């Protein structure tokens, strides 16, 4: 069989992909000009193109690694099934409870002492790998050298019939990773967790043991409210070489020519494979603290290379910018923990713990003073605060008018909020006045405005919308958590709501002819906006984000126009 001239096949194949699927057959026939073989070849490739989907899209190594991971998980599962209700040494295996970094974990009963323990086995295929066995033993040795309430206790290590196991404290609860899947934690809770981790790290560092893989999956929150550090699997002993023998051996065993630890929590020195000291764990704890309080990673990227680059060179957006409720002192603690240069970082876990504890104490007193703030809002309270905010804006407005009428006061600087190329529109202050949301074309020519959010005084803006439509007229919810906006575009028109920290947007209404200003009405979570004259209805409509429907309508004789600073919680 002689294949058709490849160049021609290629040309027609790509041309066909440019046209709508329904017209392909007809056009391909036309382009092939009676050459049946050519047509069949192109049609056959097009058919397979349609089926190709994710075929070979995942790199081979990653696929193999996933398969290897699944194998590693399944490998000990068989012996586990065999072992169920049977004895391994003096442990009676009861149930499989999870999968740790180095193997499957079972719930078991210690028949000697009559207590429940967690029993972790080294997977069979790793049991043949001396380096893995050494690491497994190392975890046991490292962790059993530690007796601390924030570190999972190791009871026993053994080898029964060639199977290596560690018996350890049985914990009930969930990992921090599971806990933060639902979003950022309450600040006080996050601080309590971080303090306990710092406490545990202080104890392990004092014994000369680095954890090297501090991350949410290795931190366990017990149902009693305790935090426990798990998995000293990549721990490195004797990082302080003073009185320890052969530190080089320990380096070799733990680095093992492979990337150990989880990339996003690695310190710069870890990424570069440099010698590690206590500050590496404190960096990782800094990343965890950032993630707990903001719900986001400080170092992100689409590829691992980009993440590495961010860890090595980029200063993350401060936590306060992502979550304006966070106190600036937290940013200071996080920045110090995330210093690229280990020498500029916290030098000891105790030092970090002290700062965290101070922050925790200060917040406790702030919370007591602010207790009114957290009470359910009464109407009176709402009105008084709304009035106060309104008065503040009036004063600010008056001040600006007076200032513009006179020579500018010496101590007032006019600061551009943005200095991006292209058009920016609809600047809208967040309720706390620290941030501004605005529409921007991204420097492109045209009308594809997307919404951005930026901290005042910072250069970086966070993009909130990404569709090929025009997003306009942002309005903050009074708690600063959401931004409502209007989107105009053939398929997407409507009123939308997007979390201010970024995330999937929600369509509130199909009505897209609303014009600004959009406003939130507190208490009932209602967005209101003026309708444009287009449908010949001039007035105010209220949309209820909760029910995604129009709640009520009220006529209004005026027509909303250009944006003016407005009291964020003003009722229409």
């Amino acid at each position, binding site marked *: 069989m002689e294949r058709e001239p490849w160049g021609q096949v290629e040309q027609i194949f790509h041309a066909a992909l440019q046209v709508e699927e329904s017209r392909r057959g007809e056009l391909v026939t036309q382009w092939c000009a009676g050459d049946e073989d050519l047509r069949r070849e192109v049609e056959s490739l097009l058919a397979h193109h349609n089926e190709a989907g994710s075929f*070979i899209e995942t790199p081979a190594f990653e696929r193999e690694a996933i398969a290897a991971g699944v194998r590693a*998980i399944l490998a000990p599962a068989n012996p586990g099934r065999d072992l169920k209700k049977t004895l391994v040494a003096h442990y009676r295996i009861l149930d499989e409870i999870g999968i740790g970094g180095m193997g499957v974990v079972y719930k078991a009963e210690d028949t000697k002492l009559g207590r429940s323990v967690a029993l972790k086995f080294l997977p069979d295929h790793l049991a043949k790998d001396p380096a893995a066995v050494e690491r497994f033993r190392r975890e046991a040795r490292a962790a059993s050298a530690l007796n601390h309430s924030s570190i999972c206790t190791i009871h026993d290590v053994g080898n029964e019939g060639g199977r290596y196991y560690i018996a350890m404290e049985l914990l009930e609860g969930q990992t921090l990773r599971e806990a933060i899947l639902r979003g950022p934690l309450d600040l006080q809770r996050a601080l309590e967790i971080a303090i306990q981790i710092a406490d545990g790290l202080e104890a392990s560092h004092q014994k000369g043991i680095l954890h090297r893989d501090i991350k949410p999956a290795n931190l366990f929150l017990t149902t009693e409210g305790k935090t426990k550090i798990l998995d000293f699997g990549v721990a490195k002993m004797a990082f302080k070489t003073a009185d320890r023998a052969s530190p080089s051996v320990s380096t070799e065993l733990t680095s093992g020519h492979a990337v150990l630890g989880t990339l996003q929590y690695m310190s710069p020195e870890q990424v570069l494979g440099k010698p590690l000291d206590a500050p590496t764990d404190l960096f990782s704890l800094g990343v965890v603290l950032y993630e707990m309080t903001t719900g986001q990673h400080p170092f992100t990227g689409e590829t691992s290379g980009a993440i590495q680059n961010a860890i090595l060179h980029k200063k993350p957006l401060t936590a306060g910018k992502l979550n304006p409720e966070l106190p600036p002192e937290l940013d200071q603690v996080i920045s110090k923990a995330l210093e690229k240069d280990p020498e500029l970082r916290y030098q000891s876990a105790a030092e970090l713990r002290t700062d965290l504890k101070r922050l925790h104490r200060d917040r406790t007193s702030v919370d007591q003073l602010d207790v009114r703030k957290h009470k359910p809002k009464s109407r009176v309270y709402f009105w008084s605060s709304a009035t106060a905010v309104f008065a503040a804006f009036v004063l600010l407005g008056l001040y600006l008018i007076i200032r513009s009428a006179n020579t500018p006061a010496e101590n007032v600087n006019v600061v551009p909020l943005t200095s991006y190329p292209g058009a920016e529109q609809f600047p809208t202050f967040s309720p706390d006045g620290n941030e501004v949301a605005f529409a921007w074309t991204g420097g492109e020519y045209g009308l594809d405005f997307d919404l951005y959010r930026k901290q005042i005084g910072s250069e970086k803006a966070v993009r909130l919308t990404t569709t090929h439509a025009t997003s306009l007229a942002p309005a903050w919810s009074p708690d600063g958590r959401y931004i409502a906006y209007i989107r105009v575009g053939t398929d997407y028109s409507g009123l939308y709501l997007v979390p201010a920290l970024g995330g999937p947007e929600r369509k509130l209404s199909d009505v897209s002819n609303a014009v600004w200003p959009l406003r939130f009405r507190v208490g009932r979570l209602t967005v209101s906006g003026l309708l444009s004259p287009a449908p010949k209805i001039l007035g105010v409509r209220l949309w209820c984000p909760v029910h995604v429907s129009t709640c009520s309508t009220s006529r209004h004789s005026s027509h909303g126009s250009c944006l003016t600073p407005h009291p964020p919680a003003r009722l229409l």
Partner: protein
Amino acid sequence: MDEVLGHEITQLLQAWRRGDERALEKLTPQVYRELHLAAKHCMARERQGHTLQTTALISELYLRLSDLKLIDWQNRAHFFALCARQMRRILTDQARARQSHKRGGGVKPVLFDEALMVAPETSTDLLAVDDALNRLAKVDERKSRVVEMRFFGGLSVEETAEVLKVSPETVMRDWRLAKAWLLRELSGEKPNGA
């Protein structure tokens, strides 16, 4: 990693880029050895959901192997391309070893089949892809290299474009056609009905 080796590898990379094929011959076994070790250790540690990306593995290797002062983007892209080829060898060797082990019987192969059920995407037979890719190389060398770099090396479209000195759009077009072509080869259908 000792600095002497790092410096040597960087120099070999530069020589290779200048067109010195002997540099490539010297470089290949060293890279193969290092990559193999890294891949093996990485896989031993793998577990579901924590897959370390190919590019991260290679980046790490590159950082370790090269003299940091001399790193530049083109060196990196070429190193990645070299790694892609070595990765292809490593993975197909492994798959072959597994296959012969399977014929020998034992416990592991059963587990591998279970793994296939858990991760359906892995059912694409690596060896079959490798064979088909060799056939594609005869029809269109560049497309086979695009697949090698992207599928075996985990390179991005832009990185692949950099190595091949073509535009990213061309890489995407090559990728699309190559995917369709390879899938047809694997499905065993003969075009043209001939």
